[in-house]
């Protein structure tokens, strides 16, 4: 499968067209939805993994095979899904393509994918709080609204999971599919409780942990006054000499987020802006279909 490079986004006029192209592209090799719902028509079994809902274990099958399997169902009713998109100032970082641009494409692609399955999808932007939202709809024309909404929004403010996510989790009464797209550069003592509040309400949560390619590799050489895009603080650093320590810290940080998400029963996708969006979707959906939860695409 040939993926569209994120840099090609700039060559394609409009988020809508690009997202359609992405989804159409990867769906040509992937024909079945993997976003499974709850308590509907039985689909198949999958091997039990830690974190799976015990209520879905097929005990009869266990009695016959002495192995634990979890029943999966095709959702009969429309799935309600939300894409929570981090639009803090740090998302604007990126040389070739910013995290914000990339995440908008990813958000639009996910929306288009949901709408194509006749599911309702809504988009929420958050930074220090919930900034703006597009309420979930299942109409195909809703995709245009989402794209327009994304094109008109811009990043700013600090990443603050606490208020925004917890507030959202409190308002969502019905189980939903929630995709969180963020760089998770906020404080971990706020990120993890917020995510736990979502997962505690039995939502199906997919975390897209997005890093900029430059942010991950730190390819810079020389002496820089590095300014935090969210706080405005700065440090004077010789980045080439800091690279190894920085990468160690980044790896430790993303490992911590991944461990938390997987332990909390969330799906976790880690990728950079250099990973084509359709590859992210394709790899994740393949993994999800096979019962896996964590995908690392660095």
């Amino acid at each position, binding site marked *: 499968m040939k993926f569209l490079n994120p840099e090609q986004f700039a060559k394609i006029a409009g988020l809508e067209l690009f997202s359609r192209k992405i989804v159409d592209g990867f769906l040509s090799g992937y024909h079945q939805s993997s976003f499974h719902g709850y308590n509907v028509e039985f689909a198949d079994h999958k091997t039990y993994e830690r974190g799976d809902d015990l209520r879905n274990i097929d005990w009869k099958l266990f009695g016959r095979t002495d192995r634990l399997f979890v029943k999966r169902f095709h959702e009969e009713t429309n799935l309600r899904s939300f894409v929570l998109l981090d639009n803090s100032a*740090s*998302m604007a*970082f990126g040389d070739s393509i910013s*995290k914000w641009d990339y995440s908008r494409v990813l958000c639009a692609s996910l929306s288009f994918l949901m709408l194509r399955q006749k599911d309702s999808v809504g988009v929420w932007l958050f930074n220090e709080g919930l900034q703006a939202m597009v309420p979930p709809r299942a109409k195909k024309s809703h995709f245009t609204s989402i794209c327009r909404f994304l094109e008109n929004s811009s990043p700013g403010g600090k990443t603050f999971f606490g208020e925004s996510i917890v507030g959202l989790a409190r308002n969502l009464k019905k189980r939903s599919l929630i995709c969180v797209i963020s*760089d998770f*550069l906020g404080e971990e003592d706020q990120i993890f409780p917020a995510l736990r509040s979502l997962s505690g309400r039995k939502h199906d949560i997919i975390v897209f942990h997005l890093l*900029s390619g430059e*942010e991950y590799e730190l390819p*810079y050489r*020389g*002496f*820089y*006054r*590095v*300014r*935090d*895009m*969210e*706080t405005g*603080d*700065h*440090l*004077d*650093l*010789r980045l080439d*000499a*800091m690279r*190894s*320590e*920085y990468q160690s*810290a*980044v790896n430790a*940080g993303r490992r911590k987020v991944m461990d938390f998400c997987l332990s909390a029963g969330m799906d976790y996708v880690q990728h950079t802006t250099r990973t084509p969006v359709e590859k992210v979707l394709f790899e994740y959906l393949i993994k999800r279909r096979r019962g896996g939860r964590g995908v690392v695409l660095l």
Partner: protein
Amino acid sequence: MFFFEIPSFFFGLLALAVPVILHLLPRLKPQLMDFSSLKYFKEGYFRMKNRLMFFNMLRLLVRVACISCIVAFFAGPMRKILIAKPALHFHSAPGLRIEPAVILAGGKQKLVVELPASHQMSEVTLSVDGRERFGRAVPQGAGTVEIPFSFKDQGQHELTVAIVSQDGGRQEYTAGCRTTPGWNALFIVDEEQLRKNTVLPSFFSSMEHSMMLSSRAGFDMLERIAPSGYDLVVISDAGRIDLGTYRKLEKYLQEGGSVWLFLPPDLSTDYLNKILFSYSEVNHGFLPGRLLSWNSEDAVLGRTVFSRTISSIGNWQGRFSFKGSFLIDPEPENEILLFSGKGKPLLIKKDFGEGRVYTFLFSWDAAGTGLWETKLIVPFFTDLLIHSCPAEPVKWYSRAANDSLPSVSDQETFSDFSWLLLLFSLLFLFCEGLLASGRPPGLKCSGMVC
């Protein structure tokens, strides 16, 4: 002691201000970069900051050391090494020797200190066995200081010369010696003659200090006792020397011994062995020259005056008569110590290896010479003994603990240390290059500038 040939080059140390200013001035102006978050930088920031401070300080020190070495290199560092050569030359009167030094106890000795022109001494003190002291003030300039002294007792003695400099410094030299009541002399003499109580044994016997006398041993004595154990070997009858004895005497002389060789007038030429003439590697064996004649009728008769040829005899004269039978034409390198009234040689000294052979052209018992009757025999043979057994120079040694007179007569040598500084300069330059590359081995700490 270090010094610099061109100290004015140390003005170059002003260049040290350059690295110091570079160290204190703000570094490069950083480029501004907006980054998503400093979250992951902050963890290693302070650790790297400390490392960087260390790194920058190390770099400053290396630069300072490099510049200092270069400046010092051009200034020409030298080191003055003071080699303590014997600051003064000491010598003593004849008879004062190192072990086995033998000098006559009670005899007058004299310590002579030769002073160099550059000396800075004020006083010289001689201590004998740490008790008796003989002090002398030292005049300025070159010269000598003479200190007479004597050993009252026989046995081991220690001489200590203390030199006091004008600035109060003190330096001591010490030598050991031994006094003896007499000389160890081996007499190889015919027993019949010895029984006659002839003059020479009587002389030694009559001396105040007794002597070891092995008169009965004869030539066989040399078979049992090494000649080197004796200060003197007296051979009264040279005609009785065989080849084995000659070889022993030759070795004895080579090692520095003294031999008195008497050619008595009643010695027939029939007894003259070939050892005296041809056994030796030299032409005439022990003889100081060519034996011209032996004729009792032509014997040299007359009165003889001690001359001052024998330096240790002193300025005195005496007269005695004798009858000599041999006539030797001495070789020019040999020293004639005693002449007859007719100018014929009577006592000739010949250097043989390290030793000396004294050939007497008269009878060993001095019979008929009237020497004994003149009462001069004692001083004559005493001085001759001293002359025959010359004292070796006393070897003085300095006591380092009290050695505080570097200016007396030290020898100055200079060693150049420029090459060492050049080596250090290159080493520091190499280190600077490593540090400048930002990746010094084992020091990954060129991280940040704050």
